[in-house]
């Protein structure tokens, strides 16, 4: 493969973002949500209504810490992709090049990371306020 062809391959498929990267942050949110919900549902289905939620509290807190860390890792990687930008600094992403597609998906993914982190924090809140299965 010639250098030019290799370069072309890198541009169209290489280091950057594709659709799988974009769905990573919301998937982290979804897994965090499921863990939180299932932990509470399983504990409370077996226990009576006054049972303390401590195990659920710690599960949700651990899951929240892990989820936020994973989202941070995604953000870190996306930050590098955005730095590859060689074109204008607006947020329109309207050029027809593979790099611009990388930048665009990186921006979408970055913003989704913010939304997912907010979602994770929201979902963690109930265990701060509620301490039994009531």
């Amino acid at each position, binding site marked *: 493969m010639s250098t030019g062809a290799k370069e072309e391959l890198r541009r169209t498929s290489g280091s950057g973002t*594709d659709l799988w990267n974009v769905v990573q942050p919301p998937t982290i949110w979804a897994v965090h949500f499921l863990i*939180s*919900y299932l932990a509470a549902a399983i504990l409370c289905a077996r226990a009576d209504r006054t049972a303390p*939620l401590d195990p659920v509290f710690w599960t949700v807190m651990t899951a929240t810490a892990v989820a936020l860390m994973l989202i941070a890792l995604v953000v870190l990687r996306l930050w590098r992709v955005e730095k590859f930008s060689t074109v204008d600094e607006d947020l329109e992403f309207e050029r027809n090049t593979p790099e611009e*597609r990388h*930048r*665009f998906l990186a921006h979408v993914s970055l913003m*989704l990371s913010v939304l997912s982190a907010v979602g994770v924090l929201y979902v963690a809140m109930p265990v701060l306020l509620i301490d039994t*299965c009531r």
Partner: protein
Amino acid sequence: MAAMSGDPQDDPELRRAQEKRLSEVWAQPQGWRYWTAVNNSEVGLWYTATSFGFMFFAGVLGLIIRAQLAVPDAGLVSAETYNQVFTLHGTAMMFLFAVPIFEAVAILLLPAILGARDLPFPRLSAFGYWCFLIGGLFVTGSIFFDAAPSGGWFMYPPLTTKYGGIGADIWLLGLSFIEVASIAAAVELIVGVLKCRPPGMHLNLTPLYGWYVLIVGGMILFAFPPLIAGDFLFEMERAFDWPFFDPTRGGDPLLWQHLFWIFGHPEVYIIFLPSIALLAMMVPTFAKRPVAGYSFIVLSAIGTGFLGFGLWVHHMYTTGLPAVSLGFFSAASEAVAIPTGIQIFVFIATLMLGRVERSVPMLWSMGALAIFVAGGLTGVMLAIAPFDFQAHDSYFVVAHLHYTLFGGMMFPLIAGIYYYYPIATGKMLSRRLGIWSFWLLFVGFNVTFLPMHLSGLLGMPRRVFTYPADIGLDGLNMLSSAGAAIAALGFLVFAWDVLRPKGEADAAERNPWNAGTVEWQLEMPPAPWGARSVPKIESRYPLWDDADHLRNYDEGRFYLPDAEEMQRETIVTSVLDAEPIQCLRVPGPAIVTIVAAFLLGAVFILATFELYAATIAAGIGALAAILYWTWTGTALHPEKPAKDIGLGVTVPLYLSGPRSTGWWAMFITMLGDLTAFVGLPFGYFFFWTIHENFPPADAAGPGWVWPLVAGLLLLGAWTATWSARLLNGRGRVAAMRLSLAIGMASASAGIAALAAGPWWHGMDPTAHVYPAIVWALVLWTSLHVAVGVIMQAYCLAGSVTGKLTPRYDMDMWNVSLYWHFMAFTVLVTVLVIGGFPLVA
């Protein structure tokens, strides 16, 4: 791309000959054969018209409700009829209008929006349409025989398992059948967006409608299957007395609520997003500028798509779940307001930055935003559990859901119909009638539903067929009913505008709204070929940015300007950057799709009446029709390996594996199928959580021996199928056939072994929910493996007859992909039924 010297497209004679060939290839069939058409422009039009037909039917039911409730103690309909009327009103509006209209409009418009000739699987679209029509007529027709479902549109057991009549069966089987059509459409549309974008349309240049379709298609794959699993359990209970929802035998009615709402809440967004997508196409046109914040729309649509799955329990706040569970869902329900709000703000920003032109579509769009914001705000209120405790099952909820559906779906949709009518018919709708119908409907709608917030807060419950006088509800109900009459008038004006005969005066000129997106390159009236030539895309608004676009398009200077071989063709491109990778031959008119749909419809309809012998006969007929269809119409060998598609690009005519559309269709279908399957282990573990000992200590079977044997045999069948694909690829055809034969034998033995466990232990599925759920898992897996055996046989037959060769091996790739999913299904099934009792 201006005319170069020596470009053959300079020759007008050649262009005329090309146009003649294209017209002939893409011509719609004449006479009665018109109904055998599969082209997206015909099927999409029928689909849209049929959905609207059901909408008007359901709307009349809504008017009956309002007439009955206009005055206290009214006797227009009996309580029993009223139950059928409101159940069918909700059911038809949701399942026969709101969801199918997305598929209908997308099938109609998506190829144009992507500048493609057609979607990759036209016959699948047609099949889906006929399924929808049959299932819809069956469900709606039931009310004329006093047999309609009457337990509310979400069919809660035990009311619906104990209640007599076949209404619930009609609901379950009729709608399961329509869900098949929905999933078929989702497969078609996802593959369409991912693989049929025109060359150059990188993901960041894809029209927002394409993004929304992709996201909604993905949501359908994860939302509809749990309902199919739920329908399966429910129908087993109704038909064979398997006690999934019966607490006296270990079942739990709440399981249905979970499965229903895991579908039901995402469905709200499945309805809402495609309609907002229409706004995303219209707003830039009338603001005369590109959409502001394209990537913000994409991110919020994806965000909504995910968060939409974390909300289902907010329909179940009053079922007695622990407060902490309600908290999780309440939090997610509040969070989803963020991405929803972003989309609204992007539209407002686009309008503020542009110079807005007044038009009928814009009027409807503005009405949509106003109504939707009101509905969204009451949604934020209802997401707060303590508020919902008060308002639950009251008319406040009725008001809320109608505000979201009218603002989030109905108004944008009508705006879209005014906007896109020329693309479907070549005519314009009337500006005067559009304004009249808008104001009638806008005023009528608000007069109907605004008072319902109040009547709900005053305590009027949903689904009551009447109410006593002098408890403060008379005036509000009368007002609502008067509003409904005005809204109905608005619908009639709209319907008249759409249906009235149109003459030359109504003819649309080309690109009548001066839009920038690629669908407006179409000739007016649109030509049968869909696209004169498939454009090379350089920007998001090619008609605004490229002055030569229309000339190049008309003169065939883009891709595929001809149909030399007299075949219907479209271009397949790569997922991310839309590099052309294949020239795909798409099939033409066919009767087999209609036959297959009718036979499959017969399976579901006959099963409703418990005519099982006839059901099985129809099932065999449907299978035969589908096999005939795939054998004669798919994976055909092209007459040459590659083709020049113009602009110096030559691409293959045949692809297999992950680059082909067929492989993606199989992958997406099986993803949906897997989601449905997951509903069954979910049920198993749901019962485990609610019971002190599950599996019950005294439960016999299925033991671990037979599940282990079954697992080994079935994983062996999977390995054999996979090997067959690899062997075939290396040209070792004899070994491949042997491997397939071993796979078939091993799979058949595996089915027997899987059933042997519960069978030899005498597990009676009607006795308790434990044997019932084990049998349900066995039944589901066995049926799927049986389909896998048919596929193996299909490949074996293909190899023997020369249809499947080492070069043309698409079927083998797809079947082996199916078996990868089978391996997972089998693994989960045997681990759950055989392994879990050992550790529980």
